């Protein structure tokens, strides 16, 4: 159970090696936090030492976002081991490479499966647990790429568009059940995922995304854009005619 200052006792990051997921967790950990679970496909790379603090147990565990049939038992197992799950950050996702998709369309299926299908089952499993416990907060990593698809990353963007719509609906579906959902829409973030790519306007860092997300969660916001200006940028971009949008130098 979190306390009145929104300080969680148990925090779970699905996608425990995600730089953004970890940056959010770093902002959410307080002296009230007892357990941080970093769940990912390669737990040996999760580096729990980065979070080491007296009184905080950092757990790394195997979790495969693509193995959708494991998600519900996995979440129930987490609750059995660690008690109520106060905050779950759904941070896993893949960007993929358009050239690979062109060469082998089935490669795109893998990205879509993880980013959308896997996130849907994970969120539903977490929401189910939180409804059973009557409280909890889910942060779902969407992306501005889902706001309007671009030629550079439309497979990724379309998967995030689906996830964003799902997460908004989930937030309304659990309204009144003590559960909150915050949809996080970062812009271009300098991280491993985007290494070597050309930076887009209003590029940010995992740390800033973490700070803004934690603040939005404390305030119970449904949606957070990082950086905040992107809310207004996309108000405009969303309505641009296609020929204009296509030509924009968005990285």
């Amino acid at each position, binding site marked *: *159970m979190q*306390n*009145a*200052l*929104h300080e969680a006792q148990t925090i779970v990051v699905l996608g425990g090696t995600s730089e953004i997921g970890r940056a959010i967790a770093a902002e959410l950990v307080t002296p009230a936090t007892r357990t941080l679970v970093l769940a990912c496909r390669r737990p040996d790379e999760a580096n729990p030492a980065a979070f080491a603090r007296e009184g905080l147990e950092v757990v790394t565990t195997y979790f495969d976002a693509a193995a959708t049939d494991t998600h519900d038992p996995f979440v129930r197992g987490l609750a059995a081991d660690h008690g109520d799950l106060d905050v779950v950050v759904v941070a896993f996702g893949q960007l993929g490479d358009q050239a690979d998709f062109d060469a082998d369309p089935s490669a795109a299926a893998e990205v879509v499966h993880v980013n959308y299908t896997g996130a849907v089952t994970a969120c539903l499993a977490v929401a189910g647990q939180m409804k*059973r*416990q*009557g*409280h909890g907060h889910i942060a779902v990593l969407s992306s501005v790429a889902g706001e309007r698809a671009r030629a550079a990353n439309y497979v990724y963007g379309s998967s995030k568009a689906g996830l964003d719509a799902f997460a908004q609906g989930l937030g309304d579906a659990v309204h009144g*059940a003590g559960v909150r959902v915050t949809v996080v829409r970062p812009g271009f973030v300098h991280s491993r995922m985007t290494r070597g790519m050309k930076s887009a306007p209003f590029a940010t860092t995992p740390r800033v995304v973490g700070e803004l997300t934690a603040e939005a969660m404390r305030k119970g916001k449904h949606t957070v854009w990082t950086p905040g200006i992107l809310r207004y940028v996309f108000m405009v971009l969303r309505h641009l005619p296609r020929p204009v949008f296509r030509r924009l130098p968005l990285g």
Partner: protein
Amino acid sequence: MDANDPAPAPRVELTGFGLTNPSAASLVEIDVATAAAAIKDLPSRGGIARGLGRSYGDPAQNGGGHVLRLAPGSIVVDESDHTATVGAGVSIDDLLRVLVPRGYFVPVTPGTRYVTVGGAIASDIHGKNHHLDGSFGTHVTNIRLMLADTTIVEIGPDRDPELFWATVGGMGLTGLMLDATFRLLPIETSRISVDTYRLGSLDEVMTEMVASESDFRYSVAWLDLLATGRHVGRGVLTNGAHATAGQLTAAEAGDPLEYRADQLAVMPPLVPPSGVINKLTVKAFNEMWYRKAPRSRRGELQSIPTYFHPLDLVGHWNRVYGSEGFVQYQFHVPDDAVDVMVSIIHRLAAAQLPIFMTVLKRFGPGNPAPLSFPQSGWQLAIDIGVARRRIGPLLGAFDRMVLDAGGRHYLAKDATMTPETFRRGYPRLAEWQDIRARVDPAGVWASDQSRRLRIT
């Protein structure tokens, strides 16, 4: 763990009075006749009784489980031995309307009339008379308690005293109280004779409180935590005693036990997200509140609501902090750690937080209850809006100072403790847990607070 639960009943989100940290539970209305069936029907996440929801944090909520609300029940006054036997769901508001015209007062009242007798015992509440009269549980002679297995036991200081004192201050985690018998205070009039002192520094406030405490049944000070320099901790001390018939004017003497308790206003449900509390409004309020107090006034007659329950004049005043709510930070330190109290008050003044609700009070000796809050010494309570700043680190620093000094925090106000701070403040927890294990081995009684603090 959930496979055997019955189909989930419709749920509601509940918070404490601080309006923070909601959780959803099935709210089940019960009376004495249906209580046993409701207990048998509890799901794996158990149940907890909820009175009027005046605990500030999460002790009367139970996410994913059931929250039981007991119908008020009856009020039976026994004038032969000055006691009342009262349903646990009866409020002090209801009680005073019956008692005062008959020449009685409750042994202890908190700063609000809107608490139930069950809640008063479960939190072992205290009032402005703690330094002389102790807390509510001290005056209770009998509790009818329904246990987890639905048997009803009668407990008191002389009948299963272990379970009785575990129930006093036990936050509803030993069973469901059905009714309780407690001693009443005979009064000649419904007026309080109040001495008011406006005191320009913390030192003056504390010196005067110690000097006058044995002369007055009721004593409490309000502090201006935005005053600075040599005025840090300046405040208004109000000492009170029940007025005798001889103190009333001729007009008042016609109905010496007249009692009226009305609400003047209700806070609207829609308040700006961060409320109307900020440093400017609070500084102005505090200055006005301080200046309106006379430098020194003796024997002013006030009504019971004016003296004891001033905040009850405005319904839902807790909304003033906005939708994000507020916490009440309330702690005790023993007399030998008065420097810690002084130091915390100075740090609060230095932080210049917009705080107008402050209560500084002397406590007398505690009672035998392992989880009862009051102990000899000083206590301070302050309200702080959650939205205002990130107050966690400041309160965390205070926690350490309080605990290092041998002090503790009040479970009825708690919304920020950790299992560790709770254990340090309540070293007799293991003793309480043994008694609780005897009457609720399966852990049927549970609340969000009991899970958060690992009380059971």
